[in-house]
């Protein structure tokens, strides 16, 4: 894989260290310059610590208490964590969370990539199309869910069902949010609709970093459009792909607003995810301490998944 792409793309601009002027023989003195001064990262670290790290660390304490969220509390050691592993509701929601995440990651990024490739061409309507594809991402997720309940109206003549009937696909009509085996997927479709344009924007930023000269060169070398995509565009899209996959995975695992506003975890508990369980424990059932324990476990889980993903994707970026 590596060798082919290097052949087609001499001196690819996209990968660090692949540029023409770098070389192992460079004097040490110059290498010192390559690393920016550590002061560059200080402002970010300070703000990040004040707003995210320190409060979260302080918040971790609640995981070891029986705090209801108001009033006093006492420390209960690891009881919350022990409860968690007997909590059928929380464990059930893990499956839903994973299914939802996989669906969203695969479909959203697949569509996002195709959209980006489609609008990153000479077609006349590209500016308008970009706007249309991105527009859903601009609406607040809770409102999107409220809106989609009109689309998912199960009555025959209404919403999506009405549309399906009108174009002769009446047999595909569904009880989108009311069928327990379908509700989760209906939410996933809504999320994909909203964020495919979001992925598209990140892919576009990557595509815009692919110099046209490379395509020209490849074309002159006789490469077809699939080959140009495979060996020119795709390797250079690696950073964008890393970002998109990571963001949609984390976003999928933490997805809350859309699920809560669209189904509230229902019908029954069929679309409950870890985030909705966590929210309900904290603010509906008044078990803040326990919900913090759920949040911690969720965070560890998401962190583990994303670290593995990051390692793989970064390694891939270098070799691609």
């Amino acid at each position, binding site marked *: 894989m590596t060798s082919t792409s290097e052949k087609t793309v001499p001196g690819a601009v996209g990968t660090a260290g692949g540029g023409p*002027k770098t070389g192992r023989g460079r004097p040490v003195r110059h290498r010192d310059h390559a690393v920016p001064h550590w002061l560059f990262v200080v402002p970010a670290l300070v703000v990040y610590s004040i707003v995210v790290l*320190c409060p979260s660390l302080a918040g971790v304490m609640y995981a070891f208490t029986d705090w209801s969220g108001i009033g006093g509390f006492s420390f209960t050691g690891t009881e919350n964590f022990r409860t968690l592993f007997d909590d059928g509701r929380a464990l059930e929601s893990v499956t839903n969370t994973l299914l939802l995440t996989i669906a969203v990651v695969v479909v959203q990024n697949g569509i996002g990539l195709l959209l980006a490739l489609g609008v990153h*061409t000479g077609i006349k309507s590209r500016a308008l199309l970009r706007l*249309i594809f991105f527009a859903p991402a601009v609406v607040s997720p809770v409102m999107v869910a409220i809106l989609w309940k009109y689309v998912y109206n199960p009555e025959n003549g209404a919403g999506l069902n009405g549309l399906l009937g009108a174009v002769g696909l009446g047999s595909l009509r569904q009880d989108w949010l009311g069928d327990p085996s379908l509700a989760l997927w209906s939410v996933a479709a809504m999320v994909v609709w909203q964020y495919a344009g979001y992925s598209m924007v990140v892919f576009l930023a990557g595509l815009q970093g692919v110099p046209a000269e490379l395509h020209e060169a490849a074309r002159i070398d006789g490469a077809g459009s699939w080959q140009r995509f495979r060996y020119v565009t795709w390797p250079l899209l690696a950073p964008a792909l890393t970002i998109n996959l990571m963001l949609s995975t984390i976003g999928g695992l*933490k997805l809350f607003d859309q699920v809560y506003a669209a189904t509230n975890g229902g019908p029954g508990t069929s679309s409950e995810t870890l985030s909705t369980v966590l*929210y309900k424990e904290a603010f509906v059932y008044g078990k803040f301490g326990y919900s913090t324990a759920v949040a911690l476990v969720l965070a560890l889980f998401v*962190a583990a998944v994303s670290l593995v993903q990051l390692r793989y994707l970064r390694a891939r970026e270098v070799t691609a």
Partner: protein
Amino acid sequence: MSTSTTRGPAAPGRGRRRPRYGRYVLELVMIAVAVVFLFPVYALITLAMKDPRQISESPLALPSPPTFGNFGDAWSSASLGPALVNSTVITTVSLLLLIVIGSTGAYYLARCARGLGYGLYILFLLGIVLPFQLGMIPLYRLVDDLGWLGTYQGMVLFYTGIQLPFTVFLYTGFIRALPPDYAQAALIDGCNHRQAFTRIVFPLLRPITGTVVILNAVFIWNDFFTPLLYLGGSDKETVPVGIFAFVGQYVSDYGLVFAGLVLAALPILIVFVVLQRYVIKGFAGGLKG
């Protein structure tokens, strides 16, 4: 640099050597996809132009007659005028801080990709992973203690901090893909780190800066919970707080709500269109630098 001097995206299929019909087919396919994407948008706009009775009778039919009164009503009853000012101030200042702090921080992390640099990078990444409930109450106490509830600076601090991991993540990914040679050359030519960054590296980051701006803007502009928590009842309330006040459990006027939503979405869409142009132009100019 012959092709990239054109204003359009520098990409394959600009049609010189390619059979033309291929482009038309692609265009037709893309338009068909767009129509599918537009169905919920159509729903949003038709709902925004109906009164409660019309919504009840035929929610998604074309409005007949269309009522534009919802837009005026939403503007006045949700105080959208002052809310737009508040949202704009909070979003703009947060974005500026995010760009400055985020890009410089990411520059260090990207160029120092092992050991401490990698550790810090993972530490920032943790910020995307952490559920926000975890730090919510301590952070609320902090902002309260600072006396910053009901103020712009409280919200700006919150958004800058909460979106920083995401911003650093986006920037780091793209800076790592930039060859370090340009900056190195500048350093050898006698620039200091700050100059090398502002003159050489940052201009090269235009495409991703555009992405950082638009994606953060969308989040900050739409965020509802924190403004309600920090600003509720003050004269600094943002657009979503104004609109959501009309979503009742028992009684709501969704025509009004969706009209407000359409008005709220317009500024962000305009920013997006402007940025797309800037970003594309920026690319062509960037590589030459």
